[in-house]
């Protein structure tokens, strides 16, 4: 009896052992690229396309919100002098010219994108709180900002997956342990706040465009290695 039961278990184990090696990965991936789990059924190409589309959309929305903000809050003479107040965009160690961009590798492209994305997660949250403090901020700007910050999170996830796929690197830790760049307790006065927010928006717009351009270049490199300059 005992032997029979053991035998039976062994037989079951022998029959079922291939299943142990397979991971329980759902065959159909989640459609958004923000899925953290490894999705093996989507091709790299498709994933990259989706990431690019995401970045394009983020850029477009940020452009719209920036121009809206400009029209609403910034008087005309100041519109073309963005850095008058001394607020400049943060520059990260990422390539900023075409030639530079051409020289860096795919790996650095992706990492630059990731860096960019991660650097903006927190400021966008700050921007949201700042806009909420306004008396007559248009609903559109607030909604767009909210939307952008959400999408940025998913973009980050997508880039992480891409890095894993393309560069075969391990999962990067997603915790953002950077020092808080913005102090939330300090509430600047209105004009200052307005200028600061404006700067933030315009800088984010630029960085969004950067992300989009890097990703597109990366795509080009994937498809045509020799012709992408």
């Amino acid at each position, binding site marked *: 009896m005992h032997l029979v039961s053991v035998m039976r278990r062994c037989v079951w184990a022998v029959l079922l052992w291939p299943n142990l090696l397979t991971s329980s990965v759902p065959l159909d991936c989640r459609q958004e690229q923000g899925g953290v789990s490894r999705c093996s059924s989507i091709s790299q190409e498709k994933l990259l396309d989706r990431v690019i589309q995401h970045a394009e959309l983020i850029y*477009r929305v940020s*452009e719209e919100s920036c121009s809206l903000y400009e029209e609403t809050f910034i008087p005309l003479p100041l519109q*073309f*002098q*963005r*850095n008058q107040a001394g607020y*400049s*965009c943060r*520059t990260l160690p990422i390539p*900023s*010219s*075409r*030639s*530079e*961009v051409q020289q860096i590798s795919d790996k650095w492209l992706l990492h630059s994108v990731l860096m960019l994305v991660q650097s903006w997660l927190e400021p966008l949250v700050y921007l949201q709180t700042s806009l909420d403090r306004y008396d007559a901020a248009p609903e559109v700007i607030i909604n767009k900002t909210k939307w952008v910050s959400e999408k940025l999170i998913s973009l980050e996830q997508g880039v992480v997956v891409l890095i894993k796929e393309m560069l075969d690197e391990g999962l990067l830790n997603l915790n953002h342990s950077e020092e808080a760049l913005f102090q939330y307790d300090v509430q600047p006065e209105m004009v200052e706040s307005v200028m600061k927010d404006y700067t933030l928006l315009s800088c984010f717009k*630029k*960085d969004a*465009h*950067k992300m989009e*351009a890097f990703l*597109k*270049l990366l*795509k*080009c490199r994937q498809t*045509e290695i020799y*012709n*992408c*300059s």
Partner: protein
Amino acid sequence: MATQDVGAGPRPSPAPAPAPFRITGTRELMLRLPRASPLVRLVSLSSRLTGCASRRERALLGAAAGVHHGRGTEGRETGKTLLWLPLSGAKMRNVFEVMLLLLLLLLPLVTAHAGGQPNSPPGKPVLTSCRSPEKETFTCWWKPGSDGGLSTKHSLFYRKESSDAVHECPDYRTAGENSCFFNKNNTAIWVNYNITVVATNSLGSAYSDPVEVDVVYIVQPNPPENVTVSVMEDKGWPFLRVSWEPPRKADTRSGWITLVYELRVKLKEEDDWETHLAGQQKMFNILSLPSGGEYQVEVRCRPDHGFWSEWSSTSKANVPHHFRRDNSTWILMTVFFAFTFLIVAWLLHLNRHNLKRCILPPVPGPKIKGFDKKLLKSGKSNEIFSALVVPDYPSTPSSNYEDLLVDYLEVYVPTERELQLEESKDPHDDRLKSDSSTSDSDSGRGSCDSHTLLVDKEAKEEARQAECGQTRTEVQRSLKDWDALTYAQIDMVGRDVPSGRVKTWPSLYSPLPRHSSGPLDQQSSLQMAKQHSLSTSSFLAQEASGESYWDVCSHGELPRPLRAKTPPHRGLRARSDADVSGAGLKRAPAGPRSLAPHTSEYVEVQRVNNKDVVLLQPVVTGCYQALPGEVYSKVKRVDSDNILLLQREAREEDGYPGAEQENTTQKASACVYAAVLVQDQMAPMVNGYVDTATMCTLTC
């Protein structure tokens, strides 16, 4: 500063100049001008134009020019010269020199007014625009300010956003004058450039306003290239296919720059362009071509964050003429007219009866009673006329005796006059009336007819009436039971033979004579008469006062001459007048009702034998029996007016007593005669038709 320079300038200048003039002690300026003063003037002008002259030279020439030109402005000098003029010639030369000196002293002022500061720091340049054609390089242009009379050097300095290092423009030449070209290596994307232009000359420098430039936002690509337009066809309709290529320098393939395109098209002779947005594709189909002709197409492009390029060069294409617009117009018109036509036809259809009545008014048909249109359509004239002819008594034996109406038969037996049985099938008004005028002398006519046709009944009738009154009522009652509205009544005026008159009331139906063509029993004829009366009773029942009644009066006097009434028309007419006409069956025969009992004897039609002879028999009081046929009278002739003229036969005396015999035999039984009433069905159609039959019902 400028004024300072100007002020400091001219003082030392006259001194080191080569001296076409010298300054004398009297502070007179002796100027030896060359003779060719116009030449000097020209030279001065030319030197001004070139601007190459030094300040000193310009001053001198200006002085010379001023001498020639500046007379007007120098009020004081002219005044002074004028003062000097009246002097002598040599003195005049001195004066002239003084004048020139003064002029020269005042020259800087003049020249200062006349224009062009000779030495000044440059004016402020202005950066007009910076453009990048492909997001990899960019160029900035500026407009220089005034150069202050000295050679001015412009230089462009820029500072990148994050660093404080200031760099100078690497390339001033490539893009032309007053421009700075940044090549690939020096172009940083997403970085703000702080650009300033400085104009420098020996006296100073001028800084322009700084301009922030981000290359990404200043991209204005070149126009698209290789714009080709081809005419293609789609199911018969032509359309234009436009294709182009991105500008050569823009790197759209790698996605570095994303371009959207727009094209515009117009006919050659038009002024307004029709624009189409093509997106990122490089090919576009223009389908909405209004008509044929020569089309011009232009394309331009724009990055997703930049400026529109210039329009490309015009490409032309010839589109053949097609009838698209015409077709649609014709189709529309056709549909519209068809629809209208359908609506009109539908309306006509709905109103077709009205239209028919309008266009083809109905032909009034004959309104003759008894006129059968079907017969008319069948075309048998015999039948038609037979239908018209109501009691076709002598000649139409085959018709149904129901259709034939003979009102009554009046037999008038006067002593003087002939006894005639009259039958009026279609009595006219005049006849009736005439009759009524003469007929009603018999007061004892009875309840049947006040317009009595009986004539001359006074005495006997009264007597008889007295007799008969009772019987009459009895008979009336009996008749009512029978519900017989018709009767054949022969009023016999009996007693006085000479004055006896017998009037037979309507008792003759046209069917009777017909039926008499065949062998008929007395009984059968009577039966027929009865039937006929019955049949007509319903017909006459409509009479409101169809008080046909039996007027049966028996009288004892048998031998009585029975005479038909002589004036048949009148009698009958009167009767019929009293009677109910075919149409006016409702008319109350006043006559019959008011029949006073009179002493007339009545004869009923027994039968009609085949010779068209009416056999009459005396009416027995209340008795209806089949009596042996007695030929009472014979038909004399049939009038054209359908009047039956009866005459007594030769043995009328025989018949008469025979009738009386019969009459007496029947005396006892109370019976009711159905007065056969022949009614002319056609009668109502005739004006004032009054059927000859007086409806007298006698009830048992």
